[in-house]
């Protein structure tokens, strides 16, 4: 599995991590054991996995995350959203801007307050916009220079329109 560049916002500013492998935040799949509460990992569910798992598994004390495709329909799981500490929105390609709106809706309509991560093939030049759509962490599948990425977060110091970013 590829190493990712991950940007997270800490108290002292943005931190860059290159050591993370994608399965750190493990997927839950049918052949895996049930997650246990002692596990400190975040169990990342796809939408369909979640729809199956939420009734079958005992998820008390489990750190749950949700992995969304760009075309995900949130209306079915609106009530479950507070259960997730993190929602990861997949960007299959930087030209595919659906995730911008999905993220904005997640914050705006569903008041999601957890971590919202943009993951996939992204240009650093999109970071400032992503931030303003409510994303607060980023994983790049492609090769990017960490310094360029961090500085691109603040390409703009002002904006014409208010946005959902909290």
């Amino acid at each position: 599995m590829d190493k990712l560049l991950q940007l997270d916002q800490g108290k002292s500013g943005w931190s860059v991590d290159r050591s993370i492998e994608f399965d750190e935040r493990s997927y839950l799949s049918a052949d895996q054991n049930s997650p246990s509460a002692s596990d400190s990992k975040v169990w990342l569910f796809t939408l369909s996995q979640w729809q199956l798992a939420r009734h079958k598994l005992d998820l008390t004390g489990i750190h749950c995350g949700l992995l969304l495709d760009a075309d995900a329909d949130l209306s079915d799981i609106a009530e479950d959203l507070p259960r997730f500490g993190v929602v990861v929105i997949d960007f299959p390609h930087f030209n595919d801007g659906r995730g911008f709106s999905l993220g904005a809706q997640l914050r705006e309509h569903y008041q999601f307050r957890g971590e919202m991560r943009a993951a996939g093939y992204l240009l650093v030049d999109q970071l400032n916009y992503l931030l303003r759509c409510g994303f607060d962490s980023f994983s790049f599948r492609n090769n990017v220079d960490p310094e360029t990425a961090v500085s691109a977060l603040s390409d703009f110091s002002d904006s014409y329109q208010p946005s959902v970013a909290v």
Partner: protein
Amino acid sequence: MYIYDQRDHTLLGERVDQFKRQTKRFLSGELTEEEFLPLRLQNGLYVQRLAPMLRIAVPYGMLSSLQVRKLAHITRHYDKGYCHVTTRQNIQLNWPRLEDVPEILEELASVSMHAIQTSGNCIRNVTSDAFAGVADDEVADPRPYCELVRQWSTLHPEFAFLPRKFKIAINGTQQDRVAMKFHDIGLQIVDHEQQGLGFEVYVGGGMGRTPVIGQQVRDFLPQQYLLSYLCAIVRTYNRLGRRDNKYKARIKILVKAMGVEKFRTLVEEEWLKIKDSYALLSTDDVEKARSYFTEPKSIKDAASQSESVKPQTSNEDMEVLNPAFSQWLTRNVRAHRNPTYAAVTLSLKPTGVAPGDITADQLDILADLAERYSQGELRTTHEQNVVLADVSRDQLFSLWIEARGAGFATPNIETLTDIVCCPGGDFCALANAKSLPIAESIQKTFDDMDYVYDLGELSLNISGCMNACAHHHVSDIGILGVDKKGEEFYQVMLGGDDGRRKAAIGKVLGPASAREAIPRVVQRILDVFLEHRIANESFAEVYQRIGLSYFKERVYG
């Protein structure tokens, strides 16, 4: 006109810096061609057939003399000494060097101009009527709303990677003069008896390879919801528009596929959630925008004094003395809301010049004329001409003399030779055929101005390919360049209407013709028109009455 504030300047400066860094990363190989593409497009930079092309935004067509002088300087120093006015009121440079572009953008920024979002899959420059604020059939001045939309859509974080480009037009007059129903979103300003100013909202119109007339999604939207409603439409499109096929990616395809009813339901659902959020416009917001477009004081004062001031020589005297001036008054000068003023269209269509092209020296003269005759402002039109909107009537004669000297006084506005034409195969990488030589051959063939005047109002538009940049589907006579086994041919269509009378898409007359045959084809079409014309009917009226068949017979019979 709108004056940049600190925020505009900050953002523009930061955008220029950002693009400098992006260009550097591209030139050093850090960004691939594919990755750089949307970044340069959203800064107006295309790669054309022969050189890059830079499209400069002219928000709803308004320019100050200062800006026009800067454009003159830029075309002189970074280009070949001329530029081109597009059918969306923007300005194109045809020969800038990629390495120079950041510097050009910096020059533009110094006069509050830019090339942001003039191409790419994002919300483009908002267009409007070149006679905004002076037209006598105006419901309300569209420019304050255009400015609000400009600010809202510029560097919008959510809508920079849409399925495809997105164009908005706002019409403020009773007659549709912005081809509103041929835009992704068209807004018609209405004054509602109880609810005050607001909009009829149309979506899904467009030209290109699948021309579609936009459909109404809302019959009245109070003005305070302008931005939230736009947001709801664009968001719905961004989430659901097709991305698998670029020819099916425009919003018109989405609206057609799901039907306007379903689309409306989705938009309204989304809108209800956000209508009272931060996107709500306050009365202050609207009033502030309006304050930039109030009638200049000198014009207001002139209105009250008009009784007492009489020019020494009236235009009537001059008309008798000079029939050429009289022609110009008829064709190129139109009424101003204030009767002592007039709006003047300067023609960029003399025979032999590519329609919409303008040289650096002419730009300087334009700046000068605007300063001396029209409050230091001018407007580009979507028919690729220039308007001086506030000219005192007693100065018309001296303006005419000067405009004539500079080549701007061809009295052909809204006639056959006022051809709308895209750059076509001479410049554009997408072209199937050249368009400029066609325009020239038609202008040369029909050089008898009396004949041209007799034809009355007539629009003839020429596009070099299906992308239809010259809007050939919506003109009385439309000409489209097509490629037939590697050879350039031209398809002719008749009966289009951009909405001035009633929005309609032109019908193809028959098989495409060779370039040399086009003036003859046009001649035959005009013959049929004149033969069937009753009294002073326009071409459009005759076509409406007799249909396509007579024309077909004559051209192909």
